[in-house]
């Protein structure tokens, strides 16, 4: 058989059965590339989640690039009701998170709300993020972070959250409301959802950032922050 015929049969064999590479220690998932000497070189399969990149002019498995800020979400695990007439700020049972000293944080309060009865239209909730310490703003130790508008069936309202290292109703934000009863539908979905962004820098002491809230005035309604309300936060620096 001539040399050309042998090569032809070899090529046909590869096409039918596939080519097997055996450089030593080969394993499923390995990939091969040309090295600087022009030789075929094995790159072992990477770990789950890694992506193929380049390092030093050669292919290499690497961790995927970050997709941006990584937020932490603290979720409320049960409904929490304040009986009517509760006008003193108190700690929410679930919504808090640890903060470091001298650090910037930004995030959002996401509150699902319900109240039991029609109140005077002047009523609402007080909201405060109580910090272990705070960077002074123009010489004061508190600020108000204005919230996004929210909607019920007929109107828009403004919401805000106070930020301070002192639990003080005068430094709390205000969630205004309509005089209607706030309810849930048959699936437990309330008709009042509020999102309030916040941004602050802690002072020289780390600790816990707590959501505090109370009813503004002592009218008839009991107010509830519902399960699956949340704080989403990110440590900026």
């Amino acid at each position, binding site marked *: 058989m001539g040399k050309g015929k042998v090569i032809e049969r070899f090529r046909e064999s590869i096409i039918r059965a596939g080519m097997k590479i055996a450089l030593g220690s080969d394993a499923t998932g390995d990939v091969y590339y040309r090295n600087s000497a022009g030789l075929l070189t094995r790159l072992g399969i990477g770990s789950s989640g890694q992506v193929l990149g380049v390092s030093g002019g050669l292919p290499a498995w690497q961790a995927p690039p970050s997709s941006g800020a990584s937020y932490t979400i603290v979720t409320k695990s049960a409904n*929490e009701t304040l009986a009517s*007439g509760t006008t003193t700020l108190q700690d929410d049972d679930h919504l808090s998170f640890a903060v470091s000293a001298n650090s910037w944080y930004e995030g959002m309060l996401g509150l699902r709300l319900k109240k039991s009865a029609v109140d005077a*239209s002047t009523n609402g909730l007080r909201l405060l993020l109580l910090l272990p310490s705070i960077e002074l703003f123009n010489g004061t130790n508190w600020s108000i972070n204005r919230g996004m508008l929210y909607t019920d069936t007929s109107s828009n309202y403004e919401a805000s959250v106070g930020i301070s290292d002192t639990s003080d109703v005068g430094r709390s934000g205000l969630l205004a409301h309509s005089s209607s009863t706030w309810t849930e539908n048959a699936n437990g979905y309330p008709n009042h959802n509020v999102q309030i962004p916040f941004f602050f820098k802690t002072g020289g002491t780390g600790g816990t950032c707590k959501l505090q809230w109370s009813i503004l*005035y*002592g009218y008839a309604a009991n107010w509830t922050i519902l399960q699956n309300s949340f704080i989403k936060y990110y440590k900026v620096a």
Partner: protein
Amino acid sequence: MANTITYNGYDKAGFYRFTVLDDEENIIQVLKIAKVKQIHEPDANGVPVLVNTITYANKDEALAAYLSAQ
């Protein structure tokens, strides 16, 4: 079976604390009733005015008042 209400103590912030459990004893609600309750009413201009302050004698009185208003 109806939901049950369990007393969880009086906290230092001034609240009687209760837990509402469903029939599988899952916590479905935390209920807080202040020992000192304020009552406001709007004046002629709609401005809230404090008209009364109630101090509950104990948890039973506080819970009874809450339930009677439901």
